[in-house]
């Protein structure tokens, strides 16, 4: 009896943890950003499949693009919507990209500016083609991505029509924007 109880608890517990903690295998991590290019192919692993079935999302197909998620800054601190966070740099080569702010469950975050993200075409760039985006609760000049003051959020950078998904092994050399925490409210 004890044995069966342990078995059931350990088994279901392991399933629950692996599906809610959200770090499946095969991820490509560059700085604060992690992407799972394999999830956009039929080679998606069983854990990612189960996770997708549970959350109801559809992974970006590999012939379409690849999505990178940041839940922390470069120092490993969770992203906090009451702080200013500076995204700075460039993205890997892609025809278009978008950056979007979600709450941890993948819902858009309401804010007075009604802005949930930027596309590569909307962004104001520096002279050298790089960009700075200030993510934070207070109005900023330039590229301001409002957090609505939520305590936790996720940034998703999606690259469309990009060679990076295929060459996931060389992903670590790809340039991704830095994620730096500034002042907090």
């Amino acid at each position, binding site marked *: 009896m*004890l*044995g*069966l*109880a*342990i*078995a*059931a*608890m*350990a*088994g*279901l517990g*392991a*399933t629950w943890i*692996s*599906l809610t903690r959200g770090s499946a295998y095969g991820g490509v991590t560059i700085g604060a950003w992690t992407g799972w290019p394999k*999830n*956009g*192919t*039929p080679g*998606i692993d*069983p*854990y990612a*499949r*189960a996770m*997708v*079935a*549970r*959350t*109801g*999302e*559809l*992974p*970006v*197909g*590999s*012939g*379409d*693009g690849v*999505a990178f998620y940041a839940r922390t800054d470069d120092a490993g601190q969770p992203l906090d919507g009451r702080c200013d966070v500076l995204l700075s740099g460039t993205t890997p080569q892609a*025809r*278009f990209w*978008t950056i*979007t702010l*979600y709450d941890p*469950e*993948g*819902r*858009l*975050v*309401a804010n007075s500016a009604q802005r*949930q*993200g930027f*596309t*590569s*075409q*909307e962004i104001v760039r520096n002279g050298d083609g790089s960009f700075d985006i200030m993510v934070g609760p207070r109005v900023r000049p330039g590229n301001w991505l409002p957090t609505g003051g939520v305590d936790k959020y996720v940034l*998703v950078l*999606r690259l*469309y*029509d990009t060679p990076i998904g295929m060459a996931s092994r060389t992903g670590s050399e790809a340039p991704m924007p830095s994620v730096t925490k500034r002042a907090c409210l």
Partner: protein
Amino acid sequence: MIRLALWVLGAFLLGGIVHLATVLVLPRMATQDAYARVSAMAPVNSVTPLPGPTPEKALMPFMDPAFQVSVCRYDLSRGPLKFSVPISQAYTSVSFYTRSDVPYYAINDRAAGRRVIELDLMTGAQRAALPENEEITAADRLIVTSPTTAGLIMIRALAPEAGWVPTVRTALAAAQCRPQ
């Protein structure tokens, strides 16, 4: 003592099996997966525009708000489908998902290389049943083989700036998905 240790070891092994079994079975049991969510609003074998995500309401989590999306929920049990969508000015992609939400094929406007992304969707058996000569004349027509009889075609078009939304919607509205 040893007996108890063996019992515990056995229990954890059984736990491992329970874990693997639940992970593998979950995709089949899910009632709130993307296919189920789309099925609630999209009739079979036709193109339905999906509402964009807002902070209050989104059909699926992690949808890209910069895109306008239409879906064709397909069922190939009565035969192959013909699919086409005119490309919009910025970026258009067509992604194919199985009944269990596994992405098995995606193509974008540049890869299609034309003003219209046009293709035939069929099961492996239907493709094998194509007459030989038709296979040859089909050389310049794109055939996509679906691993499952049912599934989803997601048609996504980017509006790089808010002002583009009406044009992008117009292009998507011309998408077609119908039995041959």
